[in-house]
């Protein structure tokens, strides 16, 4: 447990000692703020529904920047040789890094709550619906981070890691659109089940469905397990 904690603290301080965390948080807040203002004042609807959808797309494009250096940076900086010869188990390295990136995700999610102040001051939104939306956003973000971290462990080039992660996450986001082209019901439900956007849609509407929650958690667990076994195999 100490090893995991040490890796976590190291990851977090490395995020804030390089421009990456500031950049990702700043772009995310700028984007979210723009969409919030656009959705509220131009369409005049006092909910977070549309803003959550926009935050989802922003997340899918920004998470790869957050996760690209997690392992690629260790390979190219030759520090993997240190990590894998210190008394650390592969799962401690994987989870320590994952929690580090997840902390940045939580920080940027909490920071968007500033938008809720005018919403509650001048509108009459449903608090429970918004809370459900945030829970869904965090769960989806955790799945994206796990996927990005896994792809980062496959290459020592950070740019390549990001370039693989972006289309994979976009595919998970948009795969629901393929439903319309499918004849068989089985394929339709498969594409629907894999879609990040459709599960997120449930949360945005205020539904905390266990199926959707389990889906994001399973995706995270699979990606982290692949990540750990890959590190073991590399020895």
């Amino acid at each position, binding site marked *: 447990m*100490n*090893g995991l*904690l*040490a*890796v976590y*603290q*190291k990851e977090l*301080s*490395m995020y804030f*000692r*390089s421009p990456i965390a500031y950049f990702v948080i700043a772009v995310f807040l700028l984007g979210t703020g723009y969409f919030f203002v656009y959705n509220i004042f131009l369409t005049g609807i006092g909910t977070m529904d549309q803003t959550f959808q926009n935050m989802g797309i922003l997340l899918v494009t920004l998470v790869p920047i957050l996760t690209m250096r997690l392992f690629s940076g260790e390979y190219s*900086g*030759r*520090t*993997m*040789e*240190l990590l*894998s*010869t*210190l*008394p*650390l*188990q592969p799962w401690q390295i994987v989870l320590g890094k994952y929690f580090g990136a997840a902390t940045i995700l939580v920080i940027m999610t909490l920071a968007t709550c500033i938008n809720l102040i005018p919403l509650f001051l001048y509108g009459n939104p449903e608090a429970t619906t918004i809370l459900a939306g945030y829970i869904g956003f965090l769960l989806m973000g955790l799945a994206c981070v796990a996927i990005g971290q896994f792809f980062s462990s496959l290459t020592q080039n950070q740019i390549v890691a990001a370039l693989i992660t972006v289309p994979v996450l976009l595919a998970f986001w948009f795969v629901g659109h393929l439903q319309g082209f499918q004849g068989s019901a089985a394929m339709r439900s498969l594409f629907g089940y894999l879609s990040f956007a459709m599960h997120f849609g449930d949360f945005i509407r205020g539904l905390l469905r266990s199926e959707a929650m389990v889906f994001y958690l399973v995706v995270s667990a699979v990606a982290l397990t692949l990540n750990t076994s890959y590190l073991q195999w590399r*020895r």
Partner: protein
Amino acid sequence: MIALESVSKRYGSKTIIHDISFSVEKGEIVGFLGPNGAGKTTTMRMIAGFTTATSGRVTVAGYDMASQNGEAAKKLGYLPEHPPLYDVLEVSSYLRFVAKVKRVPRAGMQREIERVIQACRLEAVVHKEIYKLSKGYRQRVGLAQALLGDPEVLLLDEPTAGLDPGQIQETREVIRSFGENHAVLLSTHILPEVTLICRRVAIINHGRLLAIDSPNGLQQASEKTNQVSLLVSGPADAIRDAIRSIDGVNSVQIRPNGTRGELLSVDCQVDVRDGVEAAIARAVAARWSLHRLERQQPTLENIFLRYVGDSGSNSTGENE
């Protein structure tokens, strides 16, 4: 503390390390000597647990690196070929991270970090980010990291690379004092380093262990084939016969001296008995003019070159 039993490493069909066996005991510094690309780093990585051996057994502090590398890692300090540093961190927070992972008790952690900072002379850069450091400092931060937690086994892959002469001397002192009650394996291609601080030397080339002995032992083994070199002017055949007839001369080689045509270079292989070179000098100087005579002492450098040279020609023979 470190034991390798017929260890081999293959990548695909290419064998990098061939059947290496040796051990390093507590209180001993063993030098690992070989030209670049000989397999030093690969062997170090197998002992450190960064890669696994394809066959054979590596044990560190009694733990098998194939199955118990987690336990072994607690007993191990390792400085890889490239110091593994996080450039954005300060030296102090980097060392704190390594100390935490190595489970240095919280109460004594600050004292332990200060100890390695002092041993590696890092006082001036403790609060600097690592990317701002010179190559010598980076190397020493890497060494400090390996010394943290006072590990029983220390693996150092070219610890003095990139240091200036003063720093090299300090670093050797650190290693020497550490080696008094720990097991240290140190790879290098700097020969004086080995004679100065190592009790035993392992010579490796093309992934094969060629010799392992004390520097003195290696020297004595090769003194049996001592060489006397002469510069003479005179008839080659007569000189050869005269020298051959002297007791203690094993073989004579004569070739024209490259720079001055009338001179001959004569190399005689002689055995260890005293006075052989004096007898050669008397015999030659009585009839011809002797310009120079020297008995070549077998330095570690000669020994190393002989081993490495031999193995080089052997392996080309195999490939053909």
